């Protein structure tokens, strides 16, 4: 599903260049649930951003579902993101003046889907995350866990190839974290490929594979016994 070879990324900070990713080779097959771990500054978020086409690498190749991701301009990146990827953010990133349903429907809007199709699909996915009753509520009326579940529904609604979660539980307490991870596991069990960036050991152990980054290189890549979220 994801095939990355020799990926380099450096940031220009004034006169100094900060080499963040120093040759990453990374493969993810279909249906995997991969945790990317590392301390801050290890390059895990940068890697996720490059996979998410929010950022581009300086060097190396990246193919997603056999599509080479190269020469991205903003428009092309937007189209690919919309088609291939679903994002889940630490801070949920819902649009605060839109209801849960409208938030979920937004990717479909940018796909040019018709209103009734959007409505129907969004409700379907809200139901999947158990928030059908909250469809007309604004984000401010939802709890953190609920917000993240809305965000997950939004990430799923466009039926992406890969789900990218950047610290999905970072802003949640442990109970809600478990709930969210349970949902992620369920989605994964249905066959969706999911990448989770986290620095919490506990969360990582709920995935099927753990990749550890340190100073821009992968130092460990192991399959783990998945711990079920309760």
């Amino acid at each position, binding site marked *: 599903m994801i095939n990355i070879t020799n990926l380099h990324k450096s940031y220009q900070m004034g006169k100094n260049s900060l080499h963040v990713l120093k040759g990453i080779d990374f493969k993810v097959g279909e249906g995997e649930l991969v945790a990317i771990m590392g301390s801050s500054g290890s390059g895990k978020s940068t890697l996720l951003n490059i996979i998410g086409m*929010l*950022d581009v690498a300086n060097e190396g190749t990246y193919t997603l579902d056999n599509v080479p991701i190269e020469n991205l301009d*903003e428009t092309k990146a*937007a189209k690919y993101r919309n088609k291939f990827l679903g994002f889940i953010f630490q801070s949920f990133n819902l649009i605060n003046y839109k209801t849960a349903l409208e938030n979920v429907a937004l990717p479909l809007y940018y796909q040019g889907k018709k209103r009734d199709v959007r409505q129907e699909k969004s409700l379907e996915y809200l139901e999947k995350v158990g928030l059908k009753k909250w469809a007309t509520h604004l984000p401010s009326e939802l709890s953190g866990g609920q917000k993240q579940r809305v965000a997950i529904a939004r990430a799923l609604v466009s039926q992406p190839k890969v789900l990218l979660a950047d610290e999905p539980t970072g802003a949640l307490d442990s109970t809600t974290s478990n709930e969210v991870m349970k949902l992620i596991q369920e989605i994964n069990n249905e066959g969706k490929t999911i990448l989770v960036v986290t620095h919490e050991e506990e969360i990582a152990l709920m995935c099927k594979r753990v990749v550890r980054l340190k100073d821009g290189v992968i130092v460990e890549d192991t399959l783990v016994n998945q711990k079920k979220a309760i």
Partner: protein
Amino acid sequence: MKILFDKDTWQEIFSSIGQNKVRTIITVIGVLWGIFLYIVLSGAAKGVDNGFERQFERISSNSLFIWGEATSVPYDGFKTGRSINFKLSDVIALKNRIPEIQHIAPRNSSGVFGGSKAQLVNGQKKGSYNIYGDFPILTTITTKNIFKGGRFINESDIQNKRKVCVIGERTLQELFEEDETPIGKFIRINGIYFKIIGVNKFITSGPIDTDGDIFIPFTTYERLYNTGEYVDFLLVSAYPEADIVKVEADIREVLKKLHHVSPNDKRALGGFNIGKMFKQITQFASGITFLSMVIGLATIIGGIIGIGNILLISVKERTKEIGIRRAIGATPKEIQTQIMLESVFLTVIAGIIGIILGALVLSGINIVTKNMTDLPFTNPTVPIPYILGALFLMVVLGTLIGLIPAHRAVSIKPIDALREE
């Protein structure tokens, strides 16, 4: 183009501009004020223009008065201080020599420039009024509004030197009972009985008119005042395409020759050029129109810059939202289009409300000033093309100014936008 008619596009626009309603409203007021000023000012300028035109509607706008005064330069053997009196023969000479002249009405008068006012007596009532000896041709230069049932002096009156008169509105009020019909009645003018043939409804047509003017046939006046072939003043109208200033110069030249006046004598002939004044006033009015348009447009531009400014702030505030939208698949073009449409939408809404308010105020002014006939202000209107032009300009400017925040919105990378807290 499709995007313009998409319900969803508008929903997006409404929900994003609805986020900060107070700010949106204040921004809209900025542009609204501009177009409102534009409409009201140019409408008012048009009203002034119309008003002046109405003041001149009773008299040919290409006409002039000319009369004789006293010479100030010795010439041709004559010494200074000789008074110049026009003669009826001058009229023929002028018409023959100056082809631009359309009509000449020679007029005699008493009470206006000199001489005593005519004493009118009707039974116990009496009054004194300006009196004119006129030819019917006068009405081709300055319209006389004779009340129903009456008429102005005609050729037959002139030929038969009839003792008939047209009286003024005020004269009628002062010398007759309210329900009395004056037409056909006899009235004494300076002791001689005249038959009233008409009542002149007073609408000002020049500097000397009053609502009490008495008009009698030129020939009758000649006898009454013993003026012989002399004429007090001439009312001359030129053809519409003629240059009235040049015509006046030509007339003066001819008259000076006829009356042995030095070409350099500036005081021998007096005159009042209505055409010239009319032109000046028209220019003044179009100056006001131009000025009001400039002010209005400048205010509109100011308002639109305000919209651009506010959208820039709102884009800054919405950086994160824009980042989210782009992360989930909005292309830069879609974001740009949305922000530009917001700009155009606000501009157009402000424009339409401003136009409506401006029109309301103008019609209010119109109602208030309707009965003020002295005020040179009539029917303030703004031509539709001006309004459409202003709206078009607003759409163009709204689009252009929207480009700035739209560009700003997509110049931030989605990853940076998302990072912003």
